[in-house]
C-alpha cells in the first residue's frame, strides 16, 4: 500500500538524519536541501539512493537536480509509488 505524503516526509526525515545528523523535526516541506539544510550534492546522492531502497521507487539521476525542496522530494516519491 502506498504511503501518504506525511509518511514519506517522516521516512525521508529519518534518512536525512541518518546521513547528516540534522534533526528530523527540521526536515520540513518548505525547506531547501541545499540552502536551508546545508546538504551538499554528495550527501544528497546518498539520501536519494537510500530513499529508493526505503520507498521502493526509482529516482533517476536526471530527476535529482529538480529536487530542490523537501516538498519536491516528498511529492516525487509519493507520486512514484502510485
Amino acid at each position: 500500500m502506498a504511503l501518504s505524503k506525511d509518511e514519506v516526509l517522516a521516512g525521508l526525515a529519518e534518512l536525512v538524519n541518518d546521513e547528516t545528523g540534522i534533526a528530523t523535526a527540521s526536515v520540513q516541506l518548505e525547506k531547501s536541501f541545499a540552502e536551508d539544510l546545508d546538504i551538499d550534492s554528495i550527501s544528497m546522492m546518498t539520501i536519494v539512493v537510500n530513499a529508493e531502497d526505503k520507498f521502493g521507487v526509482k529516482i533517476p539521476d536526471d530527476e535529482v537536480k529538480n529536487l530542490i525542496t523537501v516538498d519536491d522530494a516528498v511529492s516525487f516519491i509519493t507520486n512514484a509509488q502510485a
Partner: protein
Amino acid sequence: MTKKIVVTGLGATTPLGGDVPTTWQALLAGESGISLLQDEWVKRFELPVAIAGKAKVPASEILTVQETKRLDPSSQFALIAAREAWADAGAPEVSPERLGVEFSTGIGGVWTLLDAYDTLRDRGVRRVLPMTVPMLMPNGPAAAVGMDIAARGGVRTAVSACASSTEAIANALDRLRSGELDIVVAGGCEQAVHPLPIAAFAAMHATSRNNENPAAASRPYDVNRDGFVMGEGGGAMVLETEEHALARGAKIYAELAGGSVTSDAFHITAPDPEGSGAARAILKALAQAGASTSDVVHINAHATSTPVGDIAEYTALLKVFGDQLPNIAVSATKSSTGHLLGGAGAIEAIFTVLAIKDRTAPPTLNLDNQDPEIPLDVVVTPRKLADGPIVAISNSFGFGGHNAVVAFRSYER
C-alpha cells in the same frame, strides 16, 4: 645555526584512552588495551587471530554524524588526535601558508575500500557511495586534518608501513628546519582491524594467536612472544619553530632534535638480521640532534613482539650504543597498546616526549621470562629518568625495509 624545533601540542586516541592524559595515565598504570574481538565476522571467517587493541573511545562518540559518514575510520582517528593536539597547543595563530601537515597511515582506507566492494557485489553499482574515493585514499587523514586547521603550506602523507608516522615527524622536522614553515601538525593513524588484514597478517604468522589471554598476547622481549597484536587509533603532535613558539608564549614539552630515515634493501618483510639500516637511522637522528650516544637515557623501542623483529632491533641498538646500552631504560609500549601500524610511531613519539617531560619511562607488560638473547634494561614498572638535559629516541621499522627514528631532547631555552 640550526633552528630549534619544539613540541607544543599532543593529541591521541588509543586502545588505552580517548586522549593523551588518559592514555598516558593508563600506560603508566600498566593497563592493557588488548581484548577479544566481539565482532560477528571473527567466527564467520574462523579467524585464527581474534584479539586486537580497539580504540577505548569510539570515534562516533566524539565526531558529528556527518564526519563519521564522510571519513574513513582511520581519518576519524586522525581528526580526533589532531584536534586535541591543536587545542593543547593553544590553537596557535599562524599564517595558513606557513602551516603544514604531515600525517600518515600505513594501510589507508581499508574499511572503506572493502565495504565498497561488498556493496558493489551485493547491491549493485548505484549503491556505491559517492565519497568512496576520497575516503579510501591514503592521504585522506592528512587532508582531513589540513582542512580542519586550514593548513595551506602543504599537506603530505608519507607511507612506509609501520614506520610511516615516525617518518612523518622526521619530514616535519626537515620542513621546519628549512624555514619553509612555522608549524607542522604531524602524526599518524590506523584502523585496519578488519577481517582481511587480520587474515593476511595471520597468513604470514606475524600476529599473536594468544586468544585465550588477550592482555598477555603482546609480550616484547619475552621468550614466549609469538607475534604482534593489531591496534587502532591515532596520534598527533604540533611541531613548531622555537622562535614561533616563544613569540606566542606557548608551553613547550620537549625539543624534536633529530629525525631520520634509512632503508635496508634487504627483504620485503624480514628485518636485516644485522640491523645495519636501523643502526644507521639511529646514528643519523643523533647526529642531527647534535647528541652523542651517551646522552640517550631512554628508548621507546619498535619492539612489536615478533620473534625475529625484537632481536634484529636489539642487534641494531647494540651496534649503536655498545657498552652504554645497559644504562639505557628501554620501553616497549606496544605491550600495552598493541601495534597501531601507521599510527604506532606517532603515539610512541608522544610517549617519548612525555617520558622526557615527566622524567618517567613507561612500563613494558608481560615480560615474565626475558629472552636471554636480548639482555636490554627493559622498564617493567614506571622508572624515573635522570634530571638535567636528556635525550630519548623512538624507533619505527616497516615492511619494505623502512627504518625511521626520531630523537627528542629535554627543552632548555
